[in-house]
């Protein structure tokens, strides 16, 4: 096990390097740059800007300087668009916000999703099943960019219960709508995967054996079915968790949370090279880490799996 962890961590280094180089090149290949504006800059002003931000160097040099600054100083550079701030500052503000609402949304998506999926599978083709499937399909087809404005319309304008947007760590009322908007569709996917996986397991031989022994249903589900049924769910949860905690552009946009999701999209549109790279690397590292966590969970759940 330790071997696996060490091996994967060693592999992570070249993976991140490849990620950096590829994103760097792709980004610079996109037409326009951070200083492309409605009014074209004179060559002199552009040259001054490029000199200030090191864009006048050949690209391989830019990559080397970039990597060196990260490795030795943990410095992701200044933002090219938000000129008063560094990428570190942008991430330090944005990531904790998305991490907060993302983790909470993840918690609800998993608990509700798994419960719904299991219930639907156990009571397959019953009213309960139809109800659960109905909810999940409804939740999945309702995109969050439709749901977000509806939520604000209902809870802010009509009922006046919740603030229409903004962020305050000390006030949970700001969290409610972002969490609902983010969790719903993931909850639906989790429920569907759980249901179909659970159905498969419930028809497996060892469950039939358990049933024939006369074990009570709750015992069969909790002791024998749930663990193997969770395998496909867990492989879905790894990347999903990363997606959720690194923010959703829709949530950030509609609820003005100040989270990282919107920064990422804006950075891409504004060609804010440094912010885009910073977030890409962060997402890359988180993805590698949680894929490792998923693999470890696999080994723990299914002793047959050996790495």
């Amino acid at each position, binding site marked *: 096990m330790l071997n696996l962890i060490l091996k994967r961590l060693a592999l992570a280094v070249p993976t991140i390097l490849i990620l950096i180089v590829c994103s760097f090149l792709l980004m610079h290949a996109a037409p326009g740059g951070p200083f492309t504006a409605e*009014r074209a800059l004179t060559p002199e002003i552009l040259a*001054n800007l490029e000199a200030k931000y090191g864009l006048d160097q050949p690209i391989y040099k830019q990559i080397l300087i970039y990597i060196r600054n990260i490795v030795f100083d943990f410095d992701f550079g200044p933002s090219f668009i*938000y000129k*008063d*701030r560094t990428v570190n500052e942008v991430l330090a503000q944005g990531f904790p916000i998305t991490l907060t609402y993302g983790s909470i949304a993840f918690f609800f998506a998993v608990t509700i999703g798994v419960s719904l999926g299991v219930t639907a599978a156990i009571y397959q083709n019953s009213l309960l099943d139809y109800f659960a499937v109905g909810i999940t399909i409804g939740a999945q087809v309702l995109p969050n960019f439709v749901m977000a404005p509806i939520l604000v319309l209902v809870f802010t304008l009509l009922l006046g219960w919740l603030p229409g947007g903004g962020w305050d760590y000390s006030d949970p009322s700001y969290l409610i709508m972002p969490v609902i908007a983010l969790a719903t569709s993931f909850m639906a996917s989790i429920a569907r995967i759980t249901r179909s996986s659970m159905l498969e397991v419930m028809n497996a031989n060892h469950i039939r054996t358990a049933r024939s022994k006369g074990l009570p249903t709750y015992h069969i589900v909790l002791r024998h079915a749930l663990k193997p049924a969770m395998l496909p769910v867990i492989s879905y949860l790894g990347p999903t968790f990363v997606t959720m905690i690194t923010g959703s552009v829709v949530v950030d946009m509609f609820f003005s949370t100040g*989270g990282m999701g919107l920064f990422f999209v804006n950075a891409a*549109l504004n060609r804010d090279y440094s912010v885009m790279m910073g977030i890409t690397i962060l997402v890359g590292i988180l993805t590698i880490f949680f894929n490792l966590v998923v693999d470890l969970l696999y080994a723990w759940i299914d002793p047959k799996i050996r790495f």
Partner: protein
Amino acid sequence: MRTKLLLSAALSAMLVFPIVSNAKTINGEKLAEEQVFTYRLLDDIKSFDPQINTDIEGSGVIRDLFEGLMNEDAKGGLVPGTAKGYSVSEDKLTYTFNLRDAKWSNGESVTAHDFVYAWRRLVDPKTASEYAWYMELMGVKNATKVVKGEVAPDQLGVRAVDDKTFEVTLEKAIPYFASMTVHSSTFPVLKSVVEKHGAGWTKPENIVGNGAYILSEYRSGEKVVRERNVNYWNNENTIIDKTVALVINDENQALTRYLAGEVDKTNIPSGQYPRLSKEYPGQAVSNPYSCSYIYWFNVGEKGPESLKDVRVRKALSYAINREVITDRILQGGQYQSYNFAHQKTAGFELPEIDYAGWTQKERDDKAKALLAEAGYGPDNPLKLTLNYNTSETHKKIAIGVSQFWKKTLGVDLTLSNSEWKIHTTKQQAGEFEVSRYAWCGDYNEASTYLDLLTSYSGHNVSGYSNPEYDEIMAESKTMENPNPNYAKAEKILARDMPFAPIYQYTGAIMLQPTLRGWPVDNLMQRFYSRDLYIVEK
């Protein structure tokens, strides 16, 4: 030296708006207990640094945090700011500003040296300001040379005669020079603070300003809060205690939050003005806004052969039914446009443009005749590509125009949509046939538009070049009243048609009924929080 002190101290005292006779009432209206003004920002503020900021919303915040030499009043007229007034030399090349006794938010005095520092900083290659061109546009002596690195920043034509006297030397006389000092790029900054904290000097814990407010809280992507600066020279007459700008990206979401009472001012989403003005009379306001929307025709080297023929360009422009665009698509009271400069620009007299007076039928007939004359018709249809950047409104207008051109002229128009940066890059490289564009004025004077079409303008992407036009614009710079030349210039544009004017902007906004003092008549839509106040419901 002929000195004319345009604005005396007495006059400036009168102009202080509003005059508070009784601390609790203004014009017979009772002031609300809580003087907090909240408005919506489309995007996060990119910088609070006057010399670094490039966008309009950023300028709005900076105008509260800092104060330049001159300000604008509610109608866009020039009023004293940190300067009590100014005098101009006989040759109009030297401006001398007399500064009032104003203080920075840390208690230090605002001096002419602070302006000298800020103005040099704007053009200093080390600052690498994207707005360095503004000082070149102002014609300050040596600005261009400093930007190019040919001379040191201390060679810029500015100097502090003494602590309270700031002198500017220009390379060429610019009649509207003083009005250019209301732009936030020219605002003073305090050297000691900038040098101590570097790029982070604008953080709420570091920033020192000379405006009516100080930056008290900034949460990127969420909100910008500024609170009263007790050291501001006119703090006594400032009513709003706190201004909150909320970043709400989606305009419909912003409207919902306005209706829920969370914001006092927001923009009206396109197409919703008629409905909102019926449902909320008095709250939905549409007023002129200094921007002009056009379609460039590429007449340059990389442009298509067809567009080099003025008859083709005229035909295309005539065939656009602007009434449909303003009244059916935009519906926010926008102006149909047959010229370039916004028709409400101060002092600008819109000349008589021939096709503006025709009916659409007449324009269409003329367009058909011109295009046929140029050799295009059913057997030889004109083929063009129209570039626009991603936006619902641009798309609707592009579809509208493609229909007008198709139906009236049989033009085979390909619509090409791209993301904004790509659109702009192509446009500036001259790689387009017809391309969407909008220009917003930097100052309230027609040359902010008309200079663009000179052959030497860096923003003239069409490849249009007419010596007669260049001459008229060059001459306008030295005229006491340049407006007759602007009228001539517009007539040349209507004759040569290097672009098709489409419409001129209005700012359609919602204002809470308790908010007073919003400068609805200011064409630049420049507001200062200190001019606003909230009355009781």
